[in-house]
């Protein structure tokens, strides 16, 4: 139910006047806050042209932001593919009727979900480095992708499981009735429908992967944040450089979130499961366990 409908009646003339007064007061508060921010920044010399003009130069984008963005997208893109694969494997494992497999998959998923991504990332980075099995310049990338895969794979496994459990049980019974085994039923009847149902949640998870790829900054991976810092140190405009990096992230993530919303509307009638979200929830309520 919409919060608006639960909390408020349709406003009468008096309530309309009160809302108008509140609206003006609220607007003054919001505009005041923003003005204060701008004035403070201006007072401290942060709005001077010299701090901002570097972002108009080609070399800034050519040597800092675009390579950084490329590395961010590369790590996130690879991690998206591998974590979906891992998620499917672990998710089907959790649904298996064979107890040891179900148990093993459960322990792995619970463990990976409870350990901070950053901890896994630092561990992999140093462990691979100590084992000296690959070129040093590749290690941060591999560590970022592997850590993101392990964590998000376990989250996607839970999505797969809840997607399959959300299907009407008639689907499974029909598969059994035509003589399919449990494995066949999962592979050809249940998981494909669950995938359609979970697609919006899956796309929201891609936002988490993209955001968490910025953790690579801590292990010296040359992603967007790292490059923004390098630029900012050189030009003496760290604040502005980090702001631009944040804006780039926000634009991409916002586009992904909108895609997730569209998908949920589009797919809601194409599966026996529930692709539809809460009607009034503009963006899927993030499973904040992965609010990286």
């Amino acid at each position: 139910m919409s919060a608006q409908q639960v909390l408020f009646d349709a406003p009468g003339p008096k309530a309309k006047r009160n809302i108008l007064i509140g609206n003006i007061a609220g607007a003054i508060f919001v505009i005041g806050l923003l003005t204060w921010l701008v004035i403070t920044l201006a007072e401290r010399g942060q709005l001077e042209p010299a701090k901002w003009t570097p972002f108009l130069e080609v070399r800034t984008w050519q040597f800092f932001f675009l390579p950084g963005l490329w590395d961010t997208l590369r790590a996130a893109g690879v991690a998206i593919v591998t974590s979906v694969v891992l998620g499917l494997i672990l998710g089907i494992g959790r649904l298996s009727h064979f107890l040891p497999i179900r148990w093993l998959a459960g322990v792995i998923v619970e463990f990976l979900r409870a350990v901070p991504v950053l901890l896994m990332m630092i561990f992999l980075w140093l462990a691979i480095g100590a084992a000296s099995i690959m070129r040093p310049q590749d290690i941060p990338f591999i560590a970022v992708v592997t850590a993101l895969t392990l964590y998000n794979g376990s989250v996607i496994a839970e999505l797969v499981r809840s997607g399959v459990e959300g299907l009407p049980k008639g689907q499974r019974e029909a598969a059994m009735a035509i003589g399919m085994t449990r494995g066949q039923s999962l592979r050809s009847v249940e998981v494909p429908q669950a995938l359609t149902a979970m697609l919006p949640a899956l796309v929201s998870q891609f936002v988490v992967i993209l955001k968490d790829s910025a953790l690579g900054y801590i292990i010296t991976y040359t992603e967007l944040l790292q490059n923004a810092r390098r630029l900012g140190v050189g030009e003496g405009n760290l604040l502005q450089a980090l702001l631009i990096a944040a804006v780039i992230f926000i634009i991409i993530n916002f586009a992904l979130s909108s895609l997730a919303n569209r998908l949920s509307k589009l797919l809601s009638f194409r599966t026996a499961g529930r692709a539809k979200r809460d009607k009034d929830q503009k963006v899927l309520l993030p499973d904040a366990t992965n609010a990286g």
Partner: protein
Amino acid sequence: MDGFLSLFEQYDVAGAFWINIQLTFWAAIWSLLLGTLLALFRISPIASLQWFGATYVNIFRNTPLTIIIAFGVLALFGQLFVSLSEDFNLNFFRLAILGLSLYHAAFVCEAIRSGVNTVPLGQAEAARAIGLSFLPAARLIILPQAFRGAIAPLGNVLIALTKNSTVAAAGSVAESAGLMKTMIEFRSDMVIPIFFTFALGFVIIVIPIGLLTTWASKKLAVAR
């Protein structure tokens, strides 16, 4: 094994985890306050406040936490000289709490809003039908049910916050992820036992929170 144990005499592992718990505790309180305020903005009938709440949530939810934490140290402190304490370490600690709170407030706001969304419209209509005006209806009928519906998502935010407190390493706070790095660099032959010690520490902290909030949300669920 002896080497492994002597590592724990050399390094204060429990102390590092204690920093994470403190970060989580303070950021939980601040983000709960700010998040509740934002949720009130978003469910109010006042358009300008709704806009502010929605914009805040969309901006902070889509920004990587690492950028926010790095911003605190590099931009707020490094460039604007914003200092939250005379003490150098305490300043970084507080800046990290500020970053964690600003980021997780967006998720708290959405959790509380989803709680309000679990209340059926009939409840409000019934409240009006027995003559309750807006404030009594909100206080006696809607909000108690809304908070009970928000326990599970709030628990998820708390778990995320606990794990995300490691990102404070990007803000020069000496917490467990940073200590793990130092320990592994010192004894790279023990990389696996060291990692599993720290991982286990988080499993021990996180899993009880999950069980507790799941239990509470079921126990307090409104039967419909």
